[in-house]
C-alpha cells in the first residue's frame, strides 16, 4: 500500500498564475523527448562541429596575436605599391640589344588578367595568393565560404585590426550556426517535432489540455518552446560558448570591445532560424494524426527547396556569364541572377536573414524579403495550428 494513502483531502495552496502554465508542457515535453536514445545521440553529435570551429578561431587568434599575418600583408602591400609606382613613373626599359620595351609588356610575371587591375585589386590578389600558400589559413577561409572570405580579405588588406577581428568572428559564428548546426537542427526537429501535435490529435489529448485552465496560445507556446530550446542547445548555446572561449583565451580585452554585440546577435540569429522552422514543423504535425507524414513533409520541404534553388542559381549564373553582360537593374536590389528565386529554399532564405542579423549581410531588398518571407511562414503556420486545434476541440 502506498505510503501517501490518506484519502481525499482538500488542497489549498497558492496556485501559480495562468501566464506560466505553458511551461508545464515544455518541461514535461523535455522529459519525454530526452527519453529517446536517438535524441540524446543526435544532441551529442551536434556539438562536435563546435570543436572544429573553436580550433579554427583559436588558430586565427594566434596568427593574429603574432602579427605574422598583418606584417606579411603590410609588406606585400608595400611591394605592390612600390611596383605600381615604378610602373607609373617608368615608361619602359631598354634591353641588351638597345630596343625599348614598354613597361606593361615587361616579363612573364605581368599576367594577362593582372594588367587591367586597380591597385586595390592587385593588393587583394597578392594577399589571396599568400594566404593560399599557408595551409592553415587556407583551411580557415575554406570554412568561411566565398562571400565570407571576400569580406575577410578586404578587412585584412585594410589592416584595420578592429575590423579584421569583428569580421572574422562574425563570419566564423555565422558559418557555424548556418552550416553544421543548421543541418543538425534540420535533423533534430525533423525527428522530434512531427509527433508533438499529431499524437495529441490521435489520442485526443487536446481535450485534457483545453479543459484545464490552459489557452490554445499557451499550448502552442509550450510545444514551440520545447523545440526552440532544443534548437538553442545545439545552435545558440555552443555558439555562445565558442564566443566565450574566444574571449576567455584572448590576451587582452580588445576582442570584447570590438565584438560585445555578438552574443545578442547570436541569440537573434538562433531565433531567426528556430522560430519559423519550428512553427513550420508544428504546423505539419497539426495537420495529420500520422507523424510519419509530417516527418516526410518536413524533410521534403527542406530538401526540394534546397535542390531547386541550387539548380536554378547555377542555371542563372551560367546564362549571365560573359564580358558583354548588360547592366541588370535588379543588381542593386540583390535580385540579379535569378536571386528572387532564393525563397524557394527555406534554408537559403533563413541564411539570408541570419546574415543580416549577424551584421555581415547586405541590407538590400533580397534580405528584407527574406525576413518578410520568414515572418509570413511563421504567422501562417501559427494560424494553421490554431485552426486545427479549434477544429479538434469542436469535435
Amino acid at each position, binding site marked *: *500500500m*502506498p505510503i*501517501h*494513502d*490518506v*484519502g*481525499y*483531502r*482538500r*488542497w*489549498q*495552496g497558492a*496556485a*501559480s*498564475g*495562468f501566464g506560466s*502554465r505553458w511551461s*508545464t508542457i515544455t*518541461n*514535461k515535453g523535455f522529459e*519525454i523527448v530526452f*527519453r529517446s536514445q536517438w535524441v540524446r545521440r543526435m544532441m551529442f553529435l551536434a556539438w562536435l562541429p563546435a570543436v572544429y570551429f573553436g580550433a579554427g578561431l583559436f588558430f586565427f587568434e594566434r596568427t593574429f596575436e603574432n602579427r605574422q599575418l598583418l606584417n606579411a600583408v603590410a609588406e606585400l602591400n608595400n611591394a605592390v605599391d612600390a611596383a605600381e609606382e615604378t610602373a607609373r613613373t617608368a615608361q619602359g626599359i631598354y634591353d641588351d640589344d638597345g630596343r625599348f620595351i614598354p613597361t606593361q609588356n615587361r616579363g612573364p610575371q605581368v599576367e594577362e588578367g593582372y594588367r587591367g587591375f586597380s591597385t586595390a585589386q592587385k593588393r587583394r590578389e597578392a594577399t589571396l595568393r599568400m594566404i593560399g600558400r599557408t595551409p592553415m589559413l587556407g583551411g580557415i577561409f575554406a570554412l568561411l565560404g566565398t562571400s565570407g572570405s571576400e569580406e575577410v580579405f578586404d578587412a585584412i588588406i585594410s589592416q584595420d585590426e578592429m575590423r579584421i577581428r569583428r569580421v572574422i568572428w562574425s563570419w566564423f559564428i555565422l558559418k557555424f550556426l548556418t552550416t553544421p548546426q543548421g543541418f543538425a537542427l534540420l535533423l533534430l526537429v525533423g525527428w522530434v517535432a512531427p*509527433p508533438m501535435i499529431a*499524437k*495529441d490529435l*490521435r*489520442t*485526443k*489529448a487536446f*481535450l*485534457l*489540455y*483545453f*479543459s*484545464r*485552465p*490552459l*489557452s490554445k496560445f499557451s499550448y502552442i507556446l509550450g510545444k514551440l518552446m520545447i523545440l526552440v530550446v532544443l534548437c538553442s542547445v545545439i545552435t545558440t548555446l555552443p555558439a555562445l560558448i565558442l564566443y566565450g572561449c574566444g574571449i576567455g583565451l584572448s590576451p587582452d580585452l580588445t576582442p570584447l570591445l570590438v565584438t560585445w554585440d555578438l552574443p545578442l546577435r547570436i541569440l537573434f540569429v538562433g531565433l531567426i532560424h528556430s522560430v519559423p522552422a519550428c512553427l513550420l514543423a508544428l504546423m505539419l504535425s497539426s495537420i495529420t494524426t500520422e507523424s510519419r507524414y509530417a516527418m516526410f513533409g518536413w524533410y521534403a520541404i527542406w530538401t526540394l527547396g534546397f535542390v531547386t534553388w541550387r539548380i536554378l542559381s547555377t542555371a542563372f549564373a551560367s546564362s549571365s556569364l560573359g564580358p558583354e553582360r548588360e547592366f541588370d537593374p535588379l543588381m542593386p536590389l540583390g535580385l540579379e541572377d535569378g536571386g528572387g528565386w532564393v525563397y524557394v529554399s527555406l534554408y537559403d532564405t533563413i541564411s539570408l536573414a541570419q546574415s543580416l542579423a549577424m551584421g555581415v549581410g547586405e541590407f538590400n531588398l533580397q534580405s528584407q524579403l527574406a525576413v518578410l518571407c520568414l515572418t509570413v511562414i511563421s504567422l501562417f503556420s501559427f494560424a494553421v495550428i490554431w485552426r486545427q486545434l479549434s477544429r479538434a*476541440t*469542436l*469535435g
Partner: protein
Amino acid sequence: MLDPQHYSRAGVTTESNGRGSTADGVNLVGGSRDGDATSVGGSGGSAGLGVGAGSVAIELQQLSKRLGKKTVLSDVTLQISNRVTGLLGPNGAGKSTLIKVLLGLLRPTAGEGRLLGRDIRRDQLEIRQLVGYTPEDDCYIDGLTGVEMVQMSGQFYGIPGREALRRAHEVLDFCGIKQERYREIAGYSTGMRQQVKFASAIVHNPQFLILDEPTTGLDPEERERLLRRIKFLNRQFGIGVMLSTHILPDVQLVCDDVIVLAEGQVRTHQSLQSLQGVNRWRVQWLEPGEAVAGVWAPQVTRWGWRVEEAVDGSWELTVPEAERAEAAAVAERVWEASTAAGLTVLHLGPAQESLEAIFLKAIEGRAHAHS
C-alpha cells in the same frame, strides 16, 4: 513530507473506497436536501467550498448554440444546484455541446450563463480553474505514466511541480490506482484510463465536477466504487457534480437531480425523488367494485389528494408535497377511507415510475405528469 497547511479534511467519519477516514471540521453549507436532510460536521476548513450544497452552481439564461446551420442548444434556461445532477439525453441531444459551452470551449450563440458566479463568455480560464472535467472520449497524453499525467494536470491547475506530484499520488490512492500508476497510460485498459482521468479532474480540489460518461469501460465493481467516490466528494466536500451519462442506473444510484435534454432543449429538470414520484401511492383492494369510485375516491379527494384509476384495476393517488414525508399518516388515512367504503385493502405502496420510462417520455417531448 506533506505540507499540512495545504490541506483540510472532512469533518466526519466516512466510508470511502472500503476504508474510513476521519478528520476535523467542514460544513456542508445549506445541507438540507429534499426529504433527506444532511448536516455534517462543524465549522472551518471550508475555504475551498465556495458554493454550498444546494446553492446554485450553474445558471443559464436562454442559452443557444448554433454549429453551422444546426441549432444544437436552443433557449436552455437552467439553474443547477451544487448537488449531484444527472444530465441525460439521447445521442445528439446537445449534452457534450452544453458541457463545452460551460467550460468555455465553445462560445454560446445567444444567451447568458454563469458557472460558480463566473461568466461563461468572459471567464473561461477561471471557470476551468474551479471545475474538474473528465471527457467522454478515451483520451490520454502519449508518453506519460499515470502518475505523470495526474501530476501534469495538477500543474496545469497551477499546483507547483513537486506538490503536484504528491497530490497526484494522493488522488491516485483515493481512486484505487496502485503500482499501475508507474506504467505508461498508452498500455492501460479503458477502465484504468477512466480512473486516471477522474483522478486528473479532482487533483486540484475543484468546486464543481463535470463528468462525461465516467463509468464507460469500468467493470461493475469499479463502476460502483467510482459512483461512491462521486457521492462522497459531493456529500463530504461539497463538490457539485454534473454527471452526463447514458447509464440510467448510475443516475438512480448517485444523482439528486436529473436534467433530460433532447433536441437541444431541456425537457425535464427536477429532483430524482419528485420525478420518480414518492408522493404517489398505489392502492389495490380485494374486491374493488363500485364503492371505490362512489365512496372512496370522493372521500380522499376532499383531503386534497388526486386519484386516478390505473389499467390493472388498481388506483393511484397523489398526495400534496407537504404530506410527502408522512407515509404512515397517508397509510392510516387510506385505511380509514377504505374501511368507511367497505373495502379491504390488499396492497398499499409507493407508485414509482422507472427512470427509463421518465427518460423515454421526456425525449418524446411529452410533458411528464409531474413536471
